[in-house]
């Protein structure tokens, strides 16, 4: 479904010195339907950058990125709009993922409006359905993100992402800032949604036990390269 071929990303630092740093180096990866792939490695290994490349939030320096056979490596913003709907990302810090001055109701309506998914009259009903899906009470609708716990915010983020019916969701350490007891609840929700919709996940984490528990395949990254790939036969998505 999504295929990365020999992706390279070089960041240039400094206005005059133009220091070049190769943060992603010759990475190839293939993501099929309804599967969960793990990306593990230390901080600075390039996991999050690879996640952003796969979601095409960053443009690769070289290599190829194919979504359902179409080359999206250098696609323009307008062309990317339909792809954005299908490839979504959940960030590590739930507190900074949402606009702090928008109420939850408006935040949930935002993706529906942007992608014109439902008419104005159906928006309220769609929002209620999104809330029910992630197990949130309707009381949260009139609150601001700062008034919610980390676990609740991450549920709001997941509700926004899932409303678009994506094919692939990049989960960039979605629970590393949350409590362990909430971690299990969030992943149960994600797995249930995968079961219902057939979505694929790319789980970025540095918790090997978590990856072992949830993923069918794992790629281990070091200094921008995939140094090892492993399959877990016990986890079949």
């Amino acid at each position: 479904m999504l295929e990365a071929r020999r992706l390279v990303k070089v960041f240039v630092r400094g206005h005059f010195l133009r220091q070049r740093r190769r943060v992603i180096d010759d990475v190839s990866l293939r993501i099929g339907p309804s599967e969960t792939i793990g990306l593990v490695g230390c901080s600075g290994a390039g996991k999050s950058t690879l996640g952003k490349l796969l979601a095409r939030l960053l443009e690769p320096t070289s290599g190829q990125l194919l979504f359902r056979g179409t080359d999206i490596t250098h696609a323009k913003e307008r062309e990317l709009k339909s792809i954005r709907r299908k490839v979504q990302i959940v960030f590590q810090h739930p507190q900074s993922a949402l606009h702090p001055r928008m109420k939850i109701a408006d935040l949930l309506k935002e993706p529906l409006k942007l992608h014109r998914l439902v008419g104005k009259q159906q928006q309220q009903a769609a929002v209620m359905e999104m809330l029910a899906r992630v197990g949130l009470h309707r009381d949260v609708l009139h609150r601001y993100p700062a008034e919610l716990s980390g676990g609740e915010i991450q549920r709001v983020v997941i509700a926004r992402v899932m409303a678009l019916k994506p094919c692939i969701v990049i989960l960039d350490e979605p629970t590393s800032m949350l409590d362990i007891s909430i971690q299990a609840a969030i992943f149960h929700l994600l797995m249930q949604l995968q079961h219902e919709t057939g979505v694929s996940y790319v789980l970025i984490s540095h918790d090997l036990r978590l990856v072992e528990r949830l993923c069918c395949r794992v790629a281990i990254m070091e200094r921008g390269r995939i140094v090892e790939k492993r399959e877990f036969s016990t986890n079949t998505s």
Partner: protein
Amino acid sequence: MKLLDVSGLQVFFEVGGQIFPVVDKIELTLSEGECFVIAGESGSGKSAFAMSLLGILPQNARVRGAILFKGKSLLEFDAKSMRAVRGSGIGYVPQSSSTSLNPVLRIGTQFHHVLRHSLNGAESSKAVTRILQDLGLDDSVALMYPHQLSEGIKGRLLVGLVACLDPMLIIADEPTKGLDTHSKEGILRIFERRVTQRGRSLIMITHDLDVAAWLPGRLGIMYAGEIVEWGPVPVVLGDDCCHPYTLGFLRSLPERDFIPIPGSCVGLLERHTGCRFANRCSRADAVCKRQHPELRRVCEDHWVRCFHA
């Protein structure tokens, strides 16, 4: 003499004329060279408890009970005396390393600011080099700004900034949150050295049970503002844990059953009667809903707040 003796500590927040109880009747004694880990979910009052020890709670907070540090009551100290305790007596490692370091000052300058009262310029520069070496970092880090460093290094620097004044007690509020295993280990080793080699005390707040298991000492599990179970770390994290919340906490780990605790924590204003975990507990009966359980000893140095333990 005990280094820290906390008894009947209660913390309330006053918001819009209403009183919200956040921490309830905490008892804790800590000797020199001892380590106490507090674990529990967000909102259980862990950070409020730590801040109450240092007197850095917001103005709308009310603290009751007694906090004795080296035999002196901290709650009776004025602002000036409290300032003298902070830093050299009790050091505090705040939760977020990315927002706790000054973004516009080089790391070396931030260390000089902390050391300026005890050392002169040349001594201070030598001390910074030595501290960075102790933290396993290169000298060049002193010339860098926080945004040029990774979260793991910033976490280590924050611990180094607190440790450079050599406080008797360090209170660390989730110093390893969101860090990878390698960075976590780096930070834990610094704490371990302080406890085992220098005989300093540590109160570590965390929700990471790997971190709790690393440090020798006692572990207290907090839930809805009170300690529900405490004892030696291997006992509480082992098969002998008794409180249903601790059991649920352990069962939610990916390497165990990965089953979340059902329901959500009782609200701050619903903590009047009965056991605070009763609405999520499979063992709860009529007594649990009617009567509030007290901490009781199940075996030597192992205490549990449950009627069914």
